[in-house]
């Protein structure tokens, strides 16, 4: 009944052909909102919308997580002269689904002397942090769960919440390797938060706003990575490095450090709880990549070159959502490339890299960027 | 120095030592009490400088238990073999050379583990491969009905 009404309403309001929606989701979302408001009170509208968005994000989370695991395995396989998963389905595309089913049915081993409550809580904290960050990301024109005016700040704040889960997991496992991994992770994320923040601030200075939709809109005539001269590019590189470190991925995967700490903070986890950590790692990667895409590479904005109108029209023809996904996956691919090329850093070198190299460069970079903006030298 | 000169040199330091020209190397048979001083002398003497202890092999000679030391000098590239044996099969005790060559630490632990020869003044004489309850398998009188299968 409700669904019927929503679809009817939306179809009424969208007079243009259906594929127009692909280029601007705002009319669709607006019509859904209005339709709901007409049928029920304001409170229930909000509740229903929350449920819809929750379910959508949950599905998105699962699909993206599964796909990224598969993509990672294929990418690393190709870099290592291997075929990668190729058993289940054509080119092994159902491999991760099979893995997921296995993880669902696998026994969850209870840990003696583990702090049961915290042990069970930790994976949820990790995964909730990912969910919350996903809310603020503009996926396409008008496809945006909450458009906060402090979007960048919100994302930075929320995405670093995951470390609490990691620390809890490491501590409550009552395993020495886990504890070392968790403490490493704590030190690592606390330091790299700085670089992530400062790299984003460089762009915030350029855009003049923290609202992600405004930042995307400001890149209509050119992405910030091109508009911002060299400082924006440096900020992008620093953001890539720091966000790789923040997501605990190689070459900064010290918290897991397979050859040193077996599996680090999630050594003792099994079954679906392990799957949560596993999924959260890929989801965090997706989130940082999509922020990089949004802030530096123009989000869902197509690639435009100033005076070339014909070229710009062709670019406009590709839907914004595809642009967004494409850019995000490009950044993810870069991060995978890092992981499968470099050896791991040591914990003190990791901190040296942050405090001796990234932070000073970043601070100087912010200054230069502020100067450029002040003088109006940017495009 | 070749094996003949080495033998003569060692003989000149102590007339009581039994020096034999073996097939490959000069072989010196030392009583257990003289082992450590001789080893120290060979390590430090200007002409020999045996600074590299190649290996310590424990041998069960039937009546006696003994150890064989292969020493080499990295400077002169000559080798000498020291042999010592003790007839005490219950509490065999030899002097440790771990203070002269660091590598003797592990090599002596191996000998102790497999033959039960104890080394006095060894820094950390524990069994290496086997359990404490295990016998000493490289002895000729070692019997193990479960693990040794004879055709």
């Amino acid at each position, binding site marked *: 009944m409700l669904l019927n009404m929503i679809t009817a309403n939306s179809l009424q309001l969208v007079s243009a052909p259906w594929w127009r929606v692909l280029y601007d989701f705002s009319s669709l979302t607006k019509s859904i909102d209005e339709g709901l408001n007409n049928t029920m009170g304001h409170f229930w509208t909000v509740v229903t919308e929350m449920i819809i968005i929750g379910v959508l994000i949950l599905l998105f989370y699962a699909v993206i997580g599964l796909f990224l695991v598969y993509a990672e395995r294929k990418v*690393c396989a190709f*870099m*290592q*002269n*291997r075929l990668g998963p190729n058993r289940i389905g054509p080119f092994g595309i159902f491999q991760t689904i099979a893995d997921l089913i296995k993880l669902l049915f696998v026994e969850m081993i209870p840990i003696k*002397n583990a702090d049961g409550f915290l042990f069970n809580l930790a994976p949820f904290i990790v995964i909730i942090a990912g969910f919350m960050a996903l809310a603020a990301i503009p996926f396409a024109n008008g496809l945006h769960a909450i458009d906060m005016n402090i979007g960048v700040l919100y994302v930075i704040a929320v995405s670093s919440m995951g470390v609490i889960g990691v620390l809890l997991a490491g501590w409550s496992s*009552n395993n*020495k*390797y886990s*504890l*070392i991994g968790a403490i490493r992770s704590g030190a690592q994320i606390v330091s790299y938060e700085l670089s992530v923040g400062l790299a984003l601030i460089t762009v915030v200075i350029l855009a003049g706003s923290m609202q992600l939709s405004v930042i995307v809109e400001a890149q209509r005539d050119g992405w910030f990575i091109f508009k911002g001269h060299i400082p924006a590019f440096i900020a992008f590189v620093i953001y890539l490095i720091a966000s790789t470190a923040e997501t605990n991925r*190689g*070459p900064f*995967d*010290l918290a897991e*450090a*397979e*050859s*040193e700490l*077996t599996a680090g903070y999630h050594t003792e986890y099994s079954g679906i709880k392990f799957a949560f950590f596993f999924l959260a790692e890929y989801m965090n990667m997706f989130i940082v990549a999509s922020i990089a895409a949004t802030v530096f590479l123009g989000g869902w904005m197509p690639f435009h070159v100033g005076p070339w109108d014909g070229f710009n029209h062709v670019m406009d023809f590709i839907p914004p959502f595809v642009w967004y996904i494409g850019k995000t996956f490009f950044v993810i691919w870069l991060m995978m490339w890092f992981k*499968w*090329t*470099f*050896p*791991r*850093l*040591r*914990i*003190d*070198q990791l901190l040296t890299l942050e405090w001796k190299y990234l932070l000073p460069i970043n601070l100087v970079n912010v200054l230069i960027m502020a100067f450029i903006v002040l003088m109006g030298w940017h495009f | 120095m070749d094996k003949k000169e080495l033998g003569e040199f060692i003989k000149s330091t102590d007339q009581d030592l039994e020096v034999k020209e*073996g*097939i*490959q*190397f000069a072989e010196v048979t030392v009583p257990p009490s003289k082992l450590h001083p001789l080893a120290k002398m060979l390590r430090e003497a200007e002409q020999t400088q045996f*600074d*590299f*202890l*190649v*290996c310590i*092999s*424990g*041998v069960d000679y039937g009546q006696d238990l003994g150890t*064989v030391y*292969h020493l080499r000098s*990295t400077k002169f590239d000559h080798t000498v*073999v020291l042999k010592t044996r003790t007839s005490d099969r219950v509490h065999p005790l030899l002097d440790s050379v771990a203070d002269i*060559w*660091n*590598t003797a*630490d*592990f*090599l002596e632990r*191996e000998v102790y583990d*497999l033959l039960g020869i104890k080394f006095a003044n060894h820094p950390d004489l524990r069994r*290496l*491969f*086997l359990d404490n309850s295990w016998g000493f*398998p*490289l002895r000729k009188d070692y019997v193990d009905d479960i693990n040794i299968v*004879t055709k």
Partner: protein
Amino acid sequence: MEEQVKNISTDEQQEYVINMGPQHPSTHGVLRLVVSLKGETVKSVQPHIGYIHRGIEKMCESITYPQIIHLTDRMDYLSAHINNEAVCLTVEKALQVEIPDRIKVIRTIMSELTRIQSHQLWWASFGMDLGGLTCFFYGLRDREKILDIFEETCGSRMIVSYNCPGGVMYDLHPNFQQKVKDFIKYFRKILPEYDQLLTGNVIFHERSKGIGKLSLEDAISYGVTGPSGRASGFSCDVRKHEPYSAYDKVQFKEILFTGGDTYFRYVARIQEMWESMNIIEQLIDNIPEGPYAVKMKPVIKLPEGEYYQRVETARGELGAYIISDGNKNPYRVKFRSPNFVNLSVLNHIAKGFKIADLVAIGGSLDLVIPDIDR
């Protein structure tokens, strides 16, 4: 709950002890390291070994000399051919058998191929220890080519059992020469890639330079041989000092460095791969004609006496010490295995470094656990 807190709390006196192994990704086998930590800094490392102690020395006392050879394969399985050679040379020395040149050359080529494949696997696993997983696959990919050459000639890939007293088991396969040449040509192109991926990498430099420094005096005193010893300047290459097989006929450098840290142990092995290729190239085109094995008696009995033969495996000096009482079985066989001795230095050089460095140092010593336990 209270008990739990007591277990976790660490005060100044209490050491944070972790067990690395026996099942641990970085020990490449069943080696158990009891590591005392202060924070992340290693205070002491106690190796606990013996998980795969099979009593090879005891077993050798009850079997004949040709049968011993297949057991030596299983000590240092990565330099299986060279281990075989140690026993064969000892037996031949004792019986004073004159070995024709062809056999010597075949053995030398095979030994050097073994050395290359061992170093390739080491490179692969060392990269993995440092966290660069791609190295593992590149190393194994190239090693596969050598294993194919082995398989074609010897019938098996890793544990070849190709040597026998008096020669080798089979003649070289007709394709052997061409395949080895192809491999050398291929590997000369690929080896610079190893350098690009790892040797030149700034992260690798940070991880390896100055880590686990072993001085020359300590290297000699601890008896660390092989590339690990030579990285400290310990001139211990048996191939140079006491040439066996055809090593006196070829020109090659002994790779010596004075740094003695993880980085130089790494570079020493990379350089050895180049040198091994040089040696093979000198020999592969002029393998003399002749029989591939000398006719030996069906039952080999060594004359009474003691025989010691050392060879240079991929990891250091392997000594085979055989005491014979004139029977067809040896009276006592002792193998001076390089890994066992190299392991003893681990505590000395890993002290004061981080856990991650311990893994790197362990990897750079290139330990093969079955050779330690025997």
